[in-house]
C-alpha cells in the first residue's frame, strides 16, 4: 500500500505521471476503457486507486466510462477517464452532459493519428478542434496541453483544480509522444501541492438551487445523498435544475456555462514564453511541439533570426488576448503543431491579417523536426 502522493524522484512515462498527478490531486474514481496510447493511465490507476481507498472500473466502452465518471462526480468523488481519438469521439455526448450539468471531472486524450483508427501507436495533435467543439451545442471548455511527463503530472493537478473550481469537465490534450516518453519526474511533498475542491453549499437545503451562480459565476455543488433532492438533467434547465423549454431559459443557461469561463480567463489561461521579449517572429506552439519549437527558436537565434516562442499551456479557452497583443509588435507568426492547421486557424483569427503567418505541421505519426521550423524561418523571414 502506497500513499496518494508518491513524493520522490522518478523516471516515469507521461501516462504514469498523469495517473500520479491525478492521485495527488485527489482523484478517487477512474472509469475507463483500454486504448493505445492511453491504456497505461488506466493500468496505473487500476492498482494505485486501491491503495488510496478509491475505485477503478473498466467499463464496457468509452460511452459508459464517461457516464460513470459523471455519476461518480455526483457521488461526491473526484473522477477521471483517459482515452485516445476513437474513445474521445465516443465520449463526446456525455462530455456535453457534463458541461450542461456542470459536473467536475477530468478527461485525458492521449492523441494519436486520425481520422478513424488511424495511427494507434503514433502521436498527433489533431483532436484539438474536437476538444473545442466535439460535443453538440454552444459551450466553453477548458483544455490543457502538457509537453513532458513532469508537466503532465502538474497539469493533471491543475486540470482537477480547474474542473472543481469551475464545475466542468477539463480536458488534458496530450499525445502519444508525451504519454509514452520516459523522463525524470519529481513528485513534491503532499503539503506543497495546492488542491482545490468544488464549492460546497451552505444554508437551507430545501431552498438550495444547484445552478444558481456564486460570486465567480459558479454554483456550489452538493453530492447525491446529502439531502438536497437534486434534480440534474441534460435538458435546458433553470437554476433549480428543472427543465424549462423556453428561449429565455436556454439563453440564461448557456450564458451561465459560458460566462463562468469567460469571466475568469485570467485565472484559467496559462502561457509561457521563451526569448519572446525582443522577438520579431513569434512561434506559437503547445504540447509536444513545444519541444520542437524551443529547439528551433534557439537554433534560429544562433542564425541571427530574432524568433521567440509563445507556448500555450491552456489551449481552450484560447489565449486570444496574448496573441492579439503580439500581433501588434512582431513581424510574423509561425504555428507549430502536429496537424494541418487547427490551432493555426485560431492564431490567424487573432492576428487578423496584420502580419504574415505560417504553419509548420504534418498530419501525424511523428514529432516535428526542429529543422522544418528553422528552414521555414530562414525562407519566410
Amino acid at each position, binding site marked *: 500500500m502506497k500513499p496518494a502522493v508518491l513524493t520522490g524522484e522518478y523516471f516515469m512515462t507521461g501516462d504514469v505521471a498523469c495517473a500520479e498527478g491525478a492521485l495527488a490531486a485527489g482523484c478517487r474514481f477512474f*472509469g475507463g476503457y483500454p486504448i493505445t496510447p492511453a491504456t497505461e493511465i488506466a493500468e496505473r490507476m487500476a492498482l494505485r486507486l486501491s491503495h488510496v481507498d478509491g475505485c477503478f*472500473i473498466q467499463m464496457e466502452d468509452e*460511452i*459508459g466510462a464517461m457516464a460513470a465518471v459523471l*455519476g461518480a462526480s455526483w*457521488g461526491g468523488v473526484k473522477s477521471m477517464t483517459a482515452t485516445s481519438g476513437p474513445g474521445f469521439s465516443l465520449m463526446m455526448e456525455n462530455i456535453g*452532459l457534463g458541461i450542461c450539468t456542470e459536473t467536475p471531472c477530468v478527461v485525458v486524450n492521449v492523441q494519436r493519428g486520425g481520422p478513424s483508427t488511424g495511427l494507434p501507436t503514433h502521436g498527433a495533435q489533431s483532436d484539438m478542434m474536437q476538444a473545442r467543439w466535439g460535443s453538440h451545442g454552444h459551450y466553453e471548455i477548458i483544455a490543457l496541453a502538457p509537453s513532458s511527463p513532469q508537466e503532465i503530472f502538474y497539469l493533471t493537478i491543475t486540470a482537477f483544480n480547474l474542473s472543481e473550481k469551475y464545475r466542468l469537465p477539463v480536458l488534458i490534450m496530450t499525445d502519444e509522444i508525451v504519454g509514452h516518453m520516459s523522463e525524470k519526474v519529481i513528485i513534491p511533498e503532499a503539503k506543497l501541492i495546492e488542491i482545490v475542491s468544488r464549492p460546497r453549499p451552505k444554508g437551507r437545503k430545501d431552498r438550495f438551487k444547484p445552478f444558481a451562480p456564486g460570486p465567480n459565476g459558479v454554483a456550489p455543488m452538493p453530492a447525491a445523498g446529502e439531502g438536497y433532492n437534486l*434534480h*440534474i438533467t441534460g435538458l435546458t434547465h433553470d437554476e433549480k435544475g428543472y427543465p424549462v423549454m423556453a428561449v429565455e431559459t436556454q439563453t440564461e443557461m448557456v450564458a451561465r456555462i459560458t460566462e463562468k469561463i469567460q469571466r475568469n480567463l485570467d485565472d484559467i489561461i496559462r502561457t509561457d514564453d521563451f526569448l519572446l521579449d525582443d522577438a520579431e517572429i513569434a512561434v506559437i506552439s503547445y504540447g509536444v511541439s513545444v519541444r520542437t519549437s524551443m529547439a528551433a527558436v534557439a537554433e534560429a537565434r544562433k542564425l541571427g533570426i530574432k524568433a521567440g516562442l509563445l507556448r500555450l499551456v491552456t489551449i481552450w479557452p484560447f489565449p486570444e488576448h496574448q496573441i492579439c497583443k503580439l500581433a501588434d509588435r512582431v513581424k510574423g507568426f509561425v504555428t507549430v503543431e502536429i496537424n494541418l492547421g487547427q490551432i493555426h486557424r485560431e492564431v490567424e483569427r487573432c492576428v487578423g491579417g496584420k502580419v504574415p503567418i505560417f504553419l509548420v505541421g504534418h498530419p501525424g505519426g511523428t514529432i516535428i523536426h526542429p529543422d522544418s521550423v528553422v528552414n521555414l524561418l530562414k525562407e519566410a523571414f
Partner: protein
Amino acid sequence: MQEIPKPSKKQPCHPLDDLIRTDRIPHIWCPGCGIGTVFSSCLAALKGSGINLGKTVMVSGIGCSGRAAGYVKLDSFHTTHGRAIPFATGLKLANPELNIVVFSGDGDLFAIGGNHFIHAARRNMDMTVICVNNLNYGMTGGQVAATTPYLAKSTTTPVGNPETPFNLPLMAYACGATYVARWTMLHTRDLTDSITEAIGKKGFSFIEALSPCPVNYGRRNKQKPLDMLKVYQKKAIIKNDADPSTLDIDFEKGIILGKFVDVDRPTFIEHYDKIYRPSRLQENVPGLNS
C-alpha cells in the same frame, strides 16, 4: 346523528405527494399512458420498502419513461439516451451507501443502452432497474423498438415489424441478474410488491413493466387505451419461477408474468473490496471520501 366529515377546503394530499415534485405536476405523459402507473407503483414501493430515502437516487435515460427522474422528489438524474446504468454505476461506486433505482424505457435500456445493461447485470452491480416496456419508442413518435412484436406497426415499420423482439427476462437472467420479474401496469399490486422486494435485495435486480403507449403504439395497432389493459387482463398468465426461455411475449397465447429469478451472488463492490480494498472491509468505510 353521526358525525359526517366535512369536505376539506384545503387540497388534500395524495399519499405519494411527499415523493413527487408537485410543482412539476401535471407530468408530460399522455392521457392513458401507463408510465404514470408504473412510476406511482415505484414510488409506493420506495415508500414501503423502509430504505433510507435520503440516500436513494433515481437515474433515468431519455424517453417518455426517462422523464420519471424529473418528477421524483429524491436526488434524481436525467442522463443521456441509454446511459442511465453506467451513470448509476459511477454513483454507486463513488458512494456505496446510495440505493440506486434506474427507471427508464425499453428503447433506452435495451437498444441504445443494451450493452450497459448486459455488463451491469454481469457485474452484479447493486441497483434496481425498472424498464417500462411500451413496445416502442414513445417519445420520438412511435418508431420500432427492440421489443416491438413481430409484424406490429410503427412509424418505421409501416407495413409491419420484420424483426424478432427481445425476451427481456431471459436476457437479464442470462447476463446474471439476481432478481428478475415481469408484471404489467394493471397488475399494480404485484408490480409494487416486486419493486419493493427488488429494492430491498442487494445485487442487480430487473423488473419489466408492460405498459400501454396509446398515443404512438396503440393508435397504429388499433388499440384504444383500455384495449391494451384488457389484453393484459385476458392474456396474463401468472407463473412464478417460469423458465426464462419460455417468456417471449405472445399476445395471442399469453403473457407470462411473475418473479422468475431470485438468487444471491456477491456484488461487484463486495468482490472489489475483497480483492482490492481488504482494509475497507475491516474499517467499514461508507464512502470513498477520504
